[in-house]
């Protein structure tokens, strides 16, 4: 069974067909990349999966269960985490606090018990704290643990956002342009992390990316879209060489 199954998905904004009849599958532990020119509808697909928008048609299933109509806050609970094209952090909070908030969905205690500070609450907190520290070590964020994220350089904030997504213990990670705004060195680092995330942590990655070097390096499969529609799918080389893709990128 595929981890994520998208079937005939469509999203319209008035006359704009942002996503039109898109279907694809993401398998466990793979890196699946969506490419396409600006405005092609890539982020819109992410926004549909994260339930920020209601689809006009089609179906989204995760681990075999329909998630087309669940509440946005349940998406993380199901095991789908995401980062944003323009980094959305809790800017007044520290790196550690951001990651703990990422962990939010895994907390089980209810308020009354929390106020009583029962031993079980404290044990749970310790366990979450350990998990978050693991993520901090994994991404080499120790140095910034207690720094307010708003004051960090952009490259580090992107990594923190990745950390917050990992802290939630996802099975599928949606990365919206992980390399945008990064320099070459940071992009290189990002590609190592994406590989580690799939290979060491066993998390599948669905990614939107423009940097074709990064796409080639990490992707197992690639999907190209333009004007909301799929124009090619397959391995990196064949998609990149596909005449429709070439045309789309030449901006015809």
């Amino acid at each position, binding site marked *: 069974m595929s981890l994520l199954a998208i079937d005939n998905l469509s999203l319209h904004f008035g006359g704009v067909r942002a996503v039109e009849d898109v279907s694809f599958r993401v398998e466990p532990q793979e890196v699946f990349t969506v490419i396409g020119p600006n405005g092609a509808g890539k982020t819109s697909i992410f926004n549909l999966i*994260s339930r*920020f928008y209601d689809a006009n048609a089609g179906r989204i299933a995760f681990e075999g269960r329909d998630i087309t109509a669940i*509440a*946005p*806050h*349940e*998406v*993380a*609970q199901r095991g789908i*985490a*995401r980062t*944003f094209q323009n980094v*959305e*952090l*809790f*800017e*007044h*909070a520290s790196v550690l606090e951001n990651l703990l*908030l*990422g962990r*939010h*969905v895994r*907390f089980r*205690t209810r*308020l009354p018990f*929390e*106020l009583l500070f029962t031993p079980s609450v404290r044990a749970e907190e310790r366990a979450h704290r350990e998990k978050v520290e693991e993520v901090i070590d994994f991404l080499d964020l120790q140095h910034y643990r207690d720094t307010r994220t*708003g004051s960090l350089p*952009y490259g580090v904030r992107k990594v923190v956002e990745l950390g*917050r997504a990992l802290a*939630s213990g996802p099975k599928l990670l949606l990365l919206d342009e992980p390399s945008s705004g990064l320099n070459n060195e940071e992009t290189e680092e990002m590609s190592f992390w994406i590989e580690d995330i799939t290979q060491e942590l066993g998390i599948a990655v669905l990614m939107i990316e423009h940097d074709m070097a990064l796409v080639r390096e990490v992707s197992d499969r690639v999907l190209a879209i333009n004007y909301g529609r799929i124009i090619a799918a397959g391995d990196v080389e064949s998609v990149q060489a596909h005449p429709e893709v070439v045309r789309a990128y030449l901006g015809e």
Partner: protein
Amino acid sequence: MRAFVEFSQQVLSGAALGCIYALIALGFVLIYKATEVVNFAQGELMMLGAFLGYTFISLFGLPFWLGLPLAVVCMAGIGGLLDRIVVRPIVGQPVFAIIMVTLGMGFVARSGASLVPAWGVDTHVFATPFTGKVASIGPLVASHDQLAIMTTTAVLVAVLFLFFRYTRIGIAIQAASQNQLAAYYVGIPVKTICSLVWGLSAAVAAVAGILLAPVVLVHANMGFIGLKAFPAAVLGGFGSIPGAIAGGLIIGVVESLAGFYLPEGFKDVAAYVVLLLVLAIRPQGLFGEGLRKKV
């Protein structure tokens, strides 16, 4: 010496009134931070809280310590419902539309209250266990009502501080206030959180209303005190909770001093004069953060 005692006495009574401003300003700030809605009906929520307290305690004859929490819980429910029914559907509309809606809620609350048979347009006396008692602190005197206002405000602020700092719901509220989009995707039910914040603000307003009732009496227009709490919130930097408390206290004290030392009439504009002066020097308010540019 006598001048100093007089001065201190004015500061003391100003601080008591300032606590009320602070509590209403706190309501403004909580709602604004979580939902980016400026609730111009915050004063009316306080008025409704006072009327409910009056109803439970004076009309139904419940003991004060039962009537008070009952009124607070009812107001929390009303606040949550207002968000769910009135505010949520218009979130995302232009700012002026939302302002009109909250102003409208204030109108409806005022006329609604005066239509309730036992409430009406009359002024109601509302006695609490503190009413009529006076304590002396050295050369100063304070009514028990004033002391109750100050103590309750201090306790409430401390409880809220702990709530926001240590509970998961409190932390979720802070997270939703900082970045709604990110809050959704870490799994925080942002809409529910907004309703909770409205409930919390209305509950705080109810406490303020019941504390204030013995001082200014209960009537349908008592919510106009919100007009003074609003500058308090702005003074503190709209969006800062410590700022709201400090802003409320400053405006209360300044008003009281202006009323004592300055000619008739200055008292009512004092709040706005202070506000203009502070904003001229620090446009972001006392505790506000400067507008930072996004990268």
